[in-house]
């Protein structure tokens, strides 16, 4: 019998480990009205999640390289624009590449910044090899240990509303891990040119290139 999930994934093991939610449904539910945020995304999966949700809107900056930079781009943007809510949506692999950023962000703790880590426990883009979060690493605890006071893992339908609130409210930076099945993100084709995306983003936000 053919599986309808990516080749090489041990889906039964992933589900047993709590990676249950469908990212294509859970990510839009968590975010709600996307126009309320400026987005910075990681590579691959989360870039496609957010590009599909916004139809590759001018209020998103998606990455396809420079792995490990998403949270810090978000911090620079949040500090520059305290009048806007900034949401970094990134994957477990991208986040793991620069965990120190969580310490840097915790120290400043901007209230207009939230980080949504869409954690499927795998490196989806390179063939669904297991990431550290499938092997015992707990990103919520790392964030909390880094000093981020509002850190939480969301792994079931019933918790989505609470996660959604955290992304939108609060007096300090929020860090939400959304555990999802290791399954493909929406097949959305986005603009992959980092320079034209910069011009597009700044044009919409600042009225300038």
């Amino acid at each position, binding site marked *: 019998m053919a599986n309808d999930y990516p080749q090489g994934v041990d889906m039964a093991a992933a589900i047993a480990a709590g990676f249950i939610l469908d990212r294509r449904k859970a990510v839009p539910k968590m975010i709600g009205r996307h126009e309320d945020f400026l987005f910075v995304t990681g590579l691959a999966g989360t870039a496609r999640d957010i590009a599909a949700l916004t139809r590759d809107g001018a209020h998103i900056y998606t990455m396809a390289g420079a792995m490990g930079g998403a949270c*810090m781009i978000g911090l620079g943007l*949040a500090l*520059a624009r305290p009048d806007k809510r900034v949401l970094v949506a990134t994957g477990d692999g991208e986040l793991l590449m620069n965990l*120190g950023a969580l310490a840097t962000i915790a120290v400043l703790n901007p209230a207009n910044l939230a980080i949504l880590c869409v954690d499927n426990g795998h490196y989806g883009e390179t063939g669904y090899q297991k990431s550290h979060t499938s092997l015992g690493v707990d990103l919520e605890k790392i964030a909390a240990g880094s000093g981020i006071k509002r850190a939480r893992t969301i792994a079931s339908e019933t918790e989505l509303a609470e996660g959604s609130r955290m992304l939108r409210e609060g007096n300090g930076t929020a860090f939400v891990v959304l555990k999802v099945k290791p399954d493909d993100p929406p097949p959305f084709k986005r603009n992959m040119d980092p*320079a034209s995306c910069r011009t597009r983003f700044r044009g919409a936000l600042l009225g300038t290139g």
Partner: protein
Amino acid sequence: MPDDDGSAARWQDELYDLLRRHNVTQFAYVPDAGHRILIDRSLADPGAQSVALTTEEEGVALLAGADLGGARGVLLMQSSGTGNCINMLSLIKGGHFPFLTLVSMRGDFGEGNPWQYPMGQAVEPVLQAMGVICLRIERPEDVVPTVGAALTMVFQGGRAVAVLLTQNLLGAKSF
């Protein structure tokens, strides 16, 4: 010639004022003796945001985010930190982001610590390979004019520029 503390304080204070006059508000750094006054001034300045990094590549990404939001920043680091930035500079080069860094050099003129040489000597070739223009400063009187030129190149010209504060300027370390 190595500076005495008084003249180092003078050019660093002038440098801070120059950066602030050009609306630089985000000061990102990994602590370093060569940037001590700039870091302390940014911490004391209510109009600036002082961002202590765990590794220098964080600063590269931070400054790209600042630019997306219409703000200007500078990355203060030691020469060893440039090596930590290299892949993140893909973001700067590919995205045509303005990028300004001030690099306090080690592993160069008069260096006594052998560990500092490999990265110190590689700073210019690796930064240039990633599209960053390098400007070297040897004398205190050149600091303000050179950083002034760099500010124009970065925030009007849209370039990536590293200003290298050499050990002629800062004083060589024998340890």
